[in-house]
């Protein structure tokens, strides 16, 4: 989350993955992740298959590996936890490279690492091939309560404004010799947050008045509705169905 620009996550393109309706992609992603999470962790080969499936999707969508790797830094805190698990978990121990570790902890660490990484990569692929605006329409089509969809859409609109405001304040702070590593920085960071809230809130009030003046009555009009045909559903189902077959095989063999 180093930069708050939603549109930077999206890679413009015209591939079969980009063309799929957003709500179909969203359902495919959620069912894929559910299948991955439900896979027994001892079936090591199954996770290799999942990774290969995601790599195939990335290839079809023409999303380069470097782009995905750069976005994967959000996972780091939990990678640290997964690496520590073998050393702190209980139960019978085993020797790995001359170090005594817990067997259960080793498996659990692997479990978190594999499933977490697959989930992160799948979400990155969705974000890279779907516009944030389309994602909102997808939520609406999936019967998410309209108020929640509207709050989300306002958030997406304001996110750039707010983070832009914050970046300007950050540049102003740094040009005055501000050092974020010092403990005394807390007060400065906090008063910036306060100023950010007031600025954003007052700006929001002005925008709200402008919207009322243009006839806003609590609902945003929907301009276009993406229709999903049977073909689109079938194409999107390839990933979760392949994953489901792998998971079934994994259940049967372990």
């Amino acid at each position, binding site marked *: *989350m180093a930069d*708050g620009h939603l549109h930077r996550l999206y890679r413009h393109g015209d591939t079969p993955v980009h063309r799929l309706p957003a709500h179909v992609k969203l359902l495919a992603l*959620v069912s894929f*992740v559910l299948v*991955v*999470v*439900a896979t027994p*962790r001892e079936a090591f080969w199954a996770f290799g298959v999942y990774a290969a499936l995601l790599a195939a999707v990335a290839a079809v969508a023409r999303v380069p590996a470097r782009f995905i790797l750069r*976005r*994967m830094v*959000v*996972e780091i805190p939990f990678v640290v936890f997964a690496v520590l698990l073998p050393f*702190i978990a209980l*139960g019978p121990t085993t020797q790995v490279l001359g170090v005594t570790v817990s067997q*259960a*902890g080793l498996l*659990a660490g692997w*479990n978190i690492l*594999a*499933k*977490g990484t697959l*989930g992160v990569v*799948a*979400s990155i692929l*969705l*974000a890279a091939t779907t516009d*944030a605006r389309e*994602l909102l329409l997808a939520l609406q089509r999936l019967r998410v*309560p309209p*108020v*929640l969809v*509207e*709050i*989300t*859409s*306002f*958030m997406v*609109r304001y*996110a750039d404004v*707010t983070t832009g*405001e*914050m970046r300007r304040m950050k540049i102003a702070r740094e040009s005055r010799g501000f050092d974020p590593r010092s*403990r005394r920085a*807390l007060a400065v*960071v*906090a*008063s*910036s*947050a*306060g100023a*950010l*809230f*007031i600025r*954003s*809130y007052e700006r929001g*009030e002005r*925008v*709200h008045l402008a*919207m009322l003046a243009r006839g806003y009555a*609590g609902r945003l009009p929907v301009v276009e509705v993406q229709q999903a045909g049977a073909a689109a559903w079938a194409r999107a189902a390839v990933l979760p169905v392949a994953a489901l077959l792998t998971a079934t095989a994994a259940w049967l063999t372990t």
Partner: protein
Amino acid sequence: MHVPDGFLDVPTSIATGVVSAATIAVALKKSRQELDEKTAPMAGLTAAFVFAVQMLNFPVGVGTSGHLMGGALAAVLVGPWTAVLVLSVVLTVQALVFADGGLTALGTNILLIGIVTVLVGWLVSKAVLRLMPTKPTSVVPASFVGALVSVPAAAAVFVLLYMVGGATELPFGALMATMLGWHTLIGLGEAVITAATVGAVVAVRPDLVYAARGLQPALVLKGADGSTICAPEPIEPGAPVHGRSPWPVVIAGLGVAFLFAGVLSFFASSNPDGLEYVAGSEGFLERARDSAVGEFVLADYGEVGGVPVGVAGLVGVGLTILLGLALFGWIGRRGSRAQSTPPQPAQV
């Protein structure tokens, strides 16, 4: 703090998802009271604000940094129900677009970051506010305490969830101690930033702080002849802070207390506490005489009478509550008697 996929098993993820969805449904109804007709735009704006604030990292220890969760901050600024909505939206966007927090763990993340921190932060802040003088700046220390408690509370709930549906067996006491230790540090940073943020807003626009509603001092008007009159109190759109029943806060507090005493005490370490340990090793434990109630069935939290420790805990909490109610009732009666003398008109 964003839990990734595969951290908790599927039943736990589904259960937390159901709890989160139900809470969001309630919040959708209740938030209309907090933000009237502006609900969607202003809640969206606050979501963007929380989203931006979560990027503010602060140092917690050697080489580690935490970032603001913003639950207590949002609750104090815009009200608890709107804050639940706001954090749920932020977490959903983070999971869908930023891959921050797993999709199957979205319910868990909303429960931990969006509901536990908001409700704990709000209830604690309100409780502290009750003990403070009635003025807008009281919100600042109240939000400090609220934020400080909210982060370890979320960490504790996480440990409980991990015990129920975690991938492996971990020593409960050690995990709880580590998580609480680190998150108390993070909570301290969260508290400092939250309090200072609220302070900055209260100083400029106290009307924007939800928790400060109804805390404004009465406007005193001074006539040309030197006479002073108190302007009538402005009518707030939300329910006024004063006169609101304290029972929800009390009942929620009781719930937490009973949970800790009745359930968590089973997991508590059976090792001697610090004093007992030192007493044993220094050889003065034997000198201690059993107290007069040493033979009572509940002595030593039930160990003497063979009562399960949880039951003993529940009885203990119940007794504490009765004592507390009696004490506060007595203080309350004294307070109202003292206030019943008519206040002197202010000299300005």
